[in-house]
């Protein structure tokens, strides 16, 4: 059973999460500025934060607690790190693709529909949730396992 440094692997996870979050945030920001979400700006941002906030607050919370306690580094089972890392990576990739795929999904949903039948882009985001919500649950469990193994 291979063991790795907790602080080094936590750092890698935090970098992964913050870099992907920044990238998705930037795309959403550009889309908001170009008027992509029209009158649904608030709902679009709300959707994004509902996926980012839980994990980011968990990680920031652990970092703050560590700084407060200034506890020494420990070694943990590499499996839990790898699990958290790859599940996070997959989840973040899907989240990163959301602002690209959802408008296309919205377009294909409304193809050939009259104005009365069309669905708003928020509906398309909700359809995308079908993939993301279960994965978010798995990611949170994986992250929880990693941080609890300290």
């Amino acid at each position, binding site marked *: 059973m291979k063991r790795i440094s907790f602080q080094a692997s936590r750092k890698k996870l935090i970098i992964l999460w913050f870099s992907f979050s920044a990238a998705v945030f930037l795309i959403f920001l*550009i*889309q908001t500025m*170009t*008027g*992509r*979400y*029209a*009158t*649904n700006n608030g709902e679009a941002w709300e959707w994004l934060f509902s996926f980012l906030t839980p994990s980011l607050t968990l990680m920031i919370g652990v970092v703050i607690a560590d700084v407060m306690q200034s506890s020494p580094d420990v070694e943990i089972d590499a499996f839990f790190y790898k699990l958290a890392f790859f599940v996070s990576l997959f989840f973040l990739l899907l989240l990163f693709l959301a*602002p*690209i795929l959802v*408008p*296309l999904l*919205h*377009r294909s949903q*409304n*193809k*050939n*529909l*009259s*104005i*009365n039948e*069309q*669905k*708003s*882009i928020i*509906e398309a985001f909700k359809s995308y949730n079908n993939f993301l919500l279960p994965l978010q649950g798995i990611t949170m469990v994986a992250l929880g396992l990693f941080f609890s193994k300290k």
Partner: protein
Amino acid sequence: MRMLMFTFCFALFFHLTTLANDSLRIAQAFINLSLTNNYFDTLSTSRIIKIASFLEKDLSKITDSSLLREKAGLYNTCYSLLYLTKAKLLYRTKINPNREELLKWKKVLDTASYYYYKATSTDDEHGTFYEFINFSSKDINHLGYELWQLKDVFAKHFNQNIYPDFKRLLLRYKNEGEIHLDSLNYYAKLFDIRLRFPFITQNDIATQLAGGEYTVARALDLISKYLQLNYIVETNDTLRARRIYEYYEAFVSELNPDNDTAFGQVVDSGIPLGNDYIPKDAFFRTELNRQVCTDLLQRIRIKFPHQPILDDTDGQGFSGEVLPGIAQIKYYFPDPAPFPSCIKAVPHFRSEFHTIRLTNRYLRSVLRRGGYEDRYQYYYYKRGGFAITTQLERIFSNGKINYNKRWDLTVAEGREFNLYDIFKTIFFAGKVEFRMVALVVSPSQAATTSINATYLNLTELIRKSYPSLPLDLEDLEMVEKTLTVMIYHFNQNDAGEVPQLDVTKRLSVSDHLSSISLRELLND
């Protein structure tokens, strides 16, 4: 070496001589053919034949491809003139041509037209050579005019040639009940005659405008229209019957069955008609007279009693009382109307049209010119008169028509999916703007509410309407009337968003009507 030099010099000399000869040939041919055409009536047939055959041989000798490219306009003009002369000769030498001979006439004139179009599509560099032979674009224009004139003469013969076949097909329907619209089309196509089937093709503008170099005679057009009306009745085609009363009215008005010798005014014809090609003869007096029209109307009334577009009685929206006989449900245009983006009233509107029928006919022709054929619907108006609304159409933000997607109110993006489209979809909302024009003809200006029209209001209004003017309104007198034009301009920020009425007043009624060629409605 000396031998080689000699060969080279000889080749150069030969090339230069050929070049000079070819230029001279074209110039000579143009001058001679122009003169022959100008003095055609005074020259003898044998002389013209000699000139034409000599010049044809001469022109065929021109082989220098660079010269042909350089002087393509002049070269094609020469050939067009040559075939025009030949066509004129054929016309002069045959008094009673049969079908085969007429087809030959057509072939020769078509060849002349072919070279004429080639001449107009090339732009020669003009210089001293053209000044010397006095060739300019005016010559090409004059040639076009001459071709057009001869086509008109030929069209008369072509129409007369197929008239017996049209009569036969009409009698065949009357005696055997068989309608052969395809045969009408076959005979018309033989001579490339522009015969339309407006009643059965309806919106299919491509079909209506397809082909046809030669004008169709009024008589043939009327036989075709009579058979089209019967075709709709016989096939019980409810979709095509939406405007059958309008078509019938147009047909009768054009046929003018109460006059034995003259046809009536042309109603809303999108193509020119040969009025004098075939006079109103005994055939029309016996086979397409008032009685025949009355019988046809009766059959239309039995098959398609005048019905609104939506035949329901749910009592929602704008439906009104039940009126037996003419229209089962009365659909009214709301009074007061939902608040529009802009409104303008034209008092004393077209007082020369003293009945609603005439006013409607005028409005219909204007709408047709604006591209709304079969894209408008009718309503009663409670204060007297009637109302018309156009269907929702897609526009640009400046009010101009989005021709590519005019009637497509689905997603904003195109059907194709290229990289640019993908980029646009990711970063920009699919904004759509669309418009509905409402015309209310009433004794006084139509009133409006202070509540903005909603998209649902309009779709409901369009749903509960009549495809043509209700019959009981047609003969009502209405000399003093006001036309109220209301524009409903909606913005939809993205697919799935609720469309909002544009009340910014950035575009006036005049701006909107100018963009759809309906500006003349305000000119009263």
